[in-house]
């Protein structure tokens, strides 16, 4: 497997370079390689060849990262298990993925009912990181995402998928070298973490992590300034937190500043561009099902940028992905028309883990360029323009029907945010006591008189789109992936 071979070579070639900086402690590639070797011996001793799927307790330490590489060298996949997630949820994942063995670097074993390999302080005097024979269909990881029915659904990603992603990522030319210093701000249960550690490791660069007990946004800022980070992939919510402090931020060392995971507002991107004056800023997009991300747009500093309702375009499909936009009957819509974005190509997961029902409803085959191709329905409402740039309009399910009219919540948000200037607002469709759909607006602020806001909205929106309930929330809750938690906000209206 070439990808694993590249990791091996990178570790061997960059022995005296730093691989990680965790809590201000550096670990060289040599130290990293030795820890990987030690953990791999433990895996060889304790897990028989048939055990392909291994749980991983996601601590923020060198042993956890080394465990991922050790598993890959042995041709095994990891399933991240967050020690702070509810026990029931983790148990559901362990059962679904049929996990029998868990790698854990914690002081006290996190999961009592599984055989646990302790990885804390494991090392080895020599480096032995030659990979076993690993097939390209073997799984690299399974990430569990929230399912609408309450049971998490597993998204397995093969080494083939991951290779296609890395190939397409390098083709974007957001190049990383062994001198780069790269941010890894994500929980290991979120697949954006994979790019954040893997791309630097493949090039001999250094990965900077965020300790779990630190306040994320201010710690990111300190890393960017004190260590002069050169590469950062972040969720746009971080910008919302940092925005009041933008005038204090000046990071000329930043070369690439990427955003993914949520809609990226154009106005905040423009303001951010002054904080990272020399950086290429990019908006990338993609669901876990299509391996990390699969479309890309480079922000233009000196020309107008494309946006819809104030949200920056997600650009064009990357090298190994094919995108189409379809109507409800699975027909491609003409340029400029709205529809559901569908993805296909080398990055696409083989399908949800042991979930035939969900696979049937989410994946479909369609003839494309005289070939039957498997597509994945993203649930994202998009439109494509004549240049082939995709504009994100919102979730298909953010689309609400109010009094028979189709309403895009993102459109209401756009007008509300414009009227509120720098205050964040989220529109929610909820079912009221008499089972009608109502629109609520949550405003991230102290209480104020909203008559002016509502009068303003009435000037740009039809009556049925005007929010009927308004709630003030001091700070919007974030989910564990660092995104605005719309479900939690919705609860305030129920």
């Amino acid at each position, binding site marked *: 497997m070439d990808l694993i071979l590249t990791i091996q070579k990178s570790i061997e070639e960059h022995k005296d370079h730093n691989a990680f900086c965790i809590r201000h402690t550096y670990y060289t590639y040599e130290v990293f390689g030795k820890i990987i070797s030690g953990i791999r011996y433990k895996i060889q001793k304790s897990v028989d060849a048939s055990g392909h799927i291994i749980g991983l307790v996601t601590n923020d330490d060198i042993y956890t990262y080394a465990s991922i590489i050790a598993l890959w060298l042995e041709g095994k996949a990891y399933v991240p298990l967050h020690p702070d997630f509810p026990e029931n949820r983790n148990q559901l994942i362990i059962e679904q993925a049929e996990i029998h063995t868990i790698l854990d670097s914690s002081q006290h074993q996190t999961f009592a009912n599984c055989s646990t390999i302790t990885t804390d302080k494991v090392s080895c005097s020599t480096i032995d990181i030659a990979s076993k024979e690993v097939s390209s269909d073997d799984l690299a990881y399974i990430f569990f995402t929230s399912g609408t029915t309450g049971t998490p659904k597993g998204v397995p990603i093969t080494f083939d998928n991951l290779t296609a992603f890395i190939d397409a990522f390098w083709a974007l030319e957001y190049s990383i070298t062994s001198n780069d210093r790269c941010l890894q701000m994500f929980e290991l249960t979120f697949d954006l973490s994979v790019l954040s550690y893997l791309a630097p490791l493949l090039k001999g660069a250094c990965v900077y992590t965020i300790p779990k*007990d*630190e*306040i*994320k946004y*201010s*710690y990111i*800022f*300190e890393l960017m*300034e004190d260590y002069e980070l050169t590469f950062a992939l972040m969720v746009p919510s971080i910008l919302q*937190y*940092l925005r009041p*402090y933008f005038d*204090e*931020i000046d990071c000329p060392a930043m070369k690439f500043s990427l955003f993914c995971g949520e809609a990226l507002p154009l106005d905040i991107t423009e303001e951010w561009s002054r904080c990272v004056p020399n950086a290429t800023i990019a908006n990338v997009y993609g669901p876990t099902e299509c391996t990390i991300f699969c479309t890309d747009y480079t922000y233009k500093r000196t020309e107008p940028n494309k946006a819809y309702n104030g949200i920056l375009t997600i650009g064009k499909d990357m090298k190994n992905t094919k995108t189409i936009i379809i109507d409800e009957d699975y027909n491609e819509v003409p340029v400029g028309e709205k529809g559901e974005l569908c993805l296909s190509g080398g990055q696409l997961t083989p399908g949800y883990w042991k979930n035939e029902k969900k696979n049937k409803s989410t994946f479909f085959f369609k003839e494309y360029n005289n070939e039957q191709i498997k597509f994945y329905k993203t649930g994202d409402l998009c439109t494509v323009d004549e240049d082939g740039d995709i504009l994100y309009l919102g979730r298909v399910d953010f689309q609400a029907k109010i009094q028979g009219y189709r309403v895009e919540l993102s459109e209401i948000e756009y007008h509300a945010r414009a009227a509120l200037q720098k205050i964040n607002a989220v529109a929610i469709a909820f079912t009221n006591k008499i089972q009608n759909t109502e629109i609520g607006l949550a405003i991230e602020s102290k209480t104020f008189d909203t008559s002016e806001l509502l009068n303003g909205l009435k000037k740009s929106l039809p009556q049925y789109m005007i929010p009927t309930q308004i709630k003030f929330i*001091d*700070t919007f*809750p*974030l989910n564990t992936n660092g995104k605005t938690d719309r479900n939690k906000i919705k609860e305030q209206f129920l």
Partner: protein
Amino acid sequence: MNITTIKEKISEILTAILEHTNFELHDELTAKDVDGWDSLSHMMIITKIEEEFGIRFKLRDLNKLKNMGSLITLIQSKL
């Protein structure tokens, strides 16, 4: 403003935001020791302190807040 007054004000702010009084304001107190003091409520507490004391923290100040003692010292330095 003397330390006792600062502490009283902080105590009122914590009570208002966290909705309980199960904490004692000694210098070594950290967020981890107090129920409900997570990254979300932290942001709210910081904003409220800025408002009540009429001060403005720098982003860099926020990382230096390792415990209650450092918070009180920081507030004093801004008054």
